[in-house]
């Protein structure tokens, strides 16, 4: 059980204080799968870091299993989206092409496909760069370009089904949130606030092509775009 109550966080920067999270509240019940969604910079990572106990909130309280969080603890695991599994000796392109190479796809074809994949994550300019010359986020995008989305979702859903852990998961992908979550916390940036908490009551396993799924997805997108109009 995770309770986040009126949590705020200010970052100290050379240009003054930045309010990254402003009085955010939500909770995740035992074995619940909660997704945090929202545009870049709305404080998702910051919130996750505080739940993990990497740093304390400036105000408000976070409780896990009834006890206030102080520091890291064995009761919480955190998995960063840093897929450190990129091969350092391969370029971004070479990394994305690896799977195809193993399937025996010819060099030209697999490089064409891999470049298209990289274009999807807007990294085609970095096709020839080795991972250590890319930022953490760019490395993640390379890994994502190499991984099919379905692979990742299936993996996550499987982990949750078998372990029944309480999960707080950060994503930018609305379909992914609808596919995985019991509840979706929609956040808005500058300052990071919780805009809405939306319950997803579709039976599992979920069919991303079903009418209910698409409806649910539409209403979430409506939440997100409405907030963008406001800002």
């Amino acid at each position, binding site marked *: 059980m995770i309770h986040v109550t009126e949590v705020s966080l200010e970052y100290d920067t050379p240009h003054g204080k930045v309010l990254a999270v402003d009085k955010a509240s939500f909770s995740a019940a035992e074995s619940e799968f909660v997704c945090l969604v929202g545009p870049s910079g709305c404080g998702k990572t910051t919130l996750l870091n505080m739940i993990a106990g990497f740093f304390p909130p400036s105000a408000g309280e976070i409780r896990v299993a009834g006890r206030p969080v102080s520091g890291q603890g064995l009761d919480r695991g955190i998995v960063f989206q840093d*897929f*450190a*599994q990129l*091969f*350092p*000796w391969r370029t971004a392109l070479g990394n994305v092409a*690896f*799977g195809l*190479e*193993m*399937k025996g796809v010819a060099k030209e074809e697999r490089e064409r496909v891999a470049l298209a994949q990289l274009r999807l994550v807007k990294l085609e300019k970095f096709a020839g760069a*080795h*991972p*250590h*010359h890319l930022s953490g986020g760019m490395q993640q995008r390379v890994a994502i370009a*190499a991984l099919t989305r379905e692979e990742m979702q299936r993996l996550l859903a499987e982990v949750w089904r078998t372990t029944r852990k309480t999960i707080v998961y950060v994503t930018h992908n609305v379909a992914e949130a609808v596919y995985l979550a019991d509840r979706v916390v929609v956040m808005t940036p500058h300052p990071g606030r919780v805009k809405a908490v939306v319950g997803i009551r579709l039976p599992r396993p979920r069919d991303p092509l079903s009418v209910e799924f698409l409806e649910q997805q539409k209403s979430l997108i409506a939440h997100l775009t409405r907030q963008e109009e406001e800002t």
Partner: protein
Amino acid sequence: MKSVLSVGIFLVVGKTLWAMLGDGTMGRHALNTLFRVFCGLALAAATGLVLGFLMARFRPVERFFLPLVSALMPIPSLAWAPVFILWFGLGNTATILVVFYAATFPMVINTWTGARAVNPLWLRAAGAMGANGGAMFWKVVVPGASPFIITGLRLAFQRAWIAVVGAEMLAASAFGLGWVIFDAKEFLNADIMLASLAVIGAIGFVFERLVFGSLERSTVLRWGMVRNVKA
């Protein structure tokens, strides 16, 4: 007085070195030595790589060879020189075997360690993308172990270089930088001895800096698997 003497020695050695370089004798000695080093080193690298990888991959191979390596490694390679001379006579074979003996162990140990130190995430990721035995070995294990392998080569070269000079003193019938020193000793020619030592040092330095330096720059440094300290 002393300083005059040492300046004098430098001058004499310089002159001798110049003369020996000029008439080609030093070059010929150096080529002989280099030939022996490379034969021994090539044999050692091949043996070390094969044995190291097999030891890392197959438990019984490790169980059989590890004690053997541990027992043989501490024996100075030069101590074998008389044995090899007894078996193979004076000349290249005995010298190359001494070099081989000296260079093999760092190669085995480093390859073995490197193969076991390959990041399991890479192995798992490659496996998930369908890499089988051969591809896994050539495209993941070998590059993944490359920082260790390069270190192994470096150490192997250094030990080979040390060994060859000693071995030549005992086993070479004519030619070789070590043999020059041994031969000069008979006539108390300190300047020739020192000239040869200078060449031995210079060649070792050049290899260390140029060959291994650039090997490292074009691989593990470029891939970010090892880093240079900041300024």
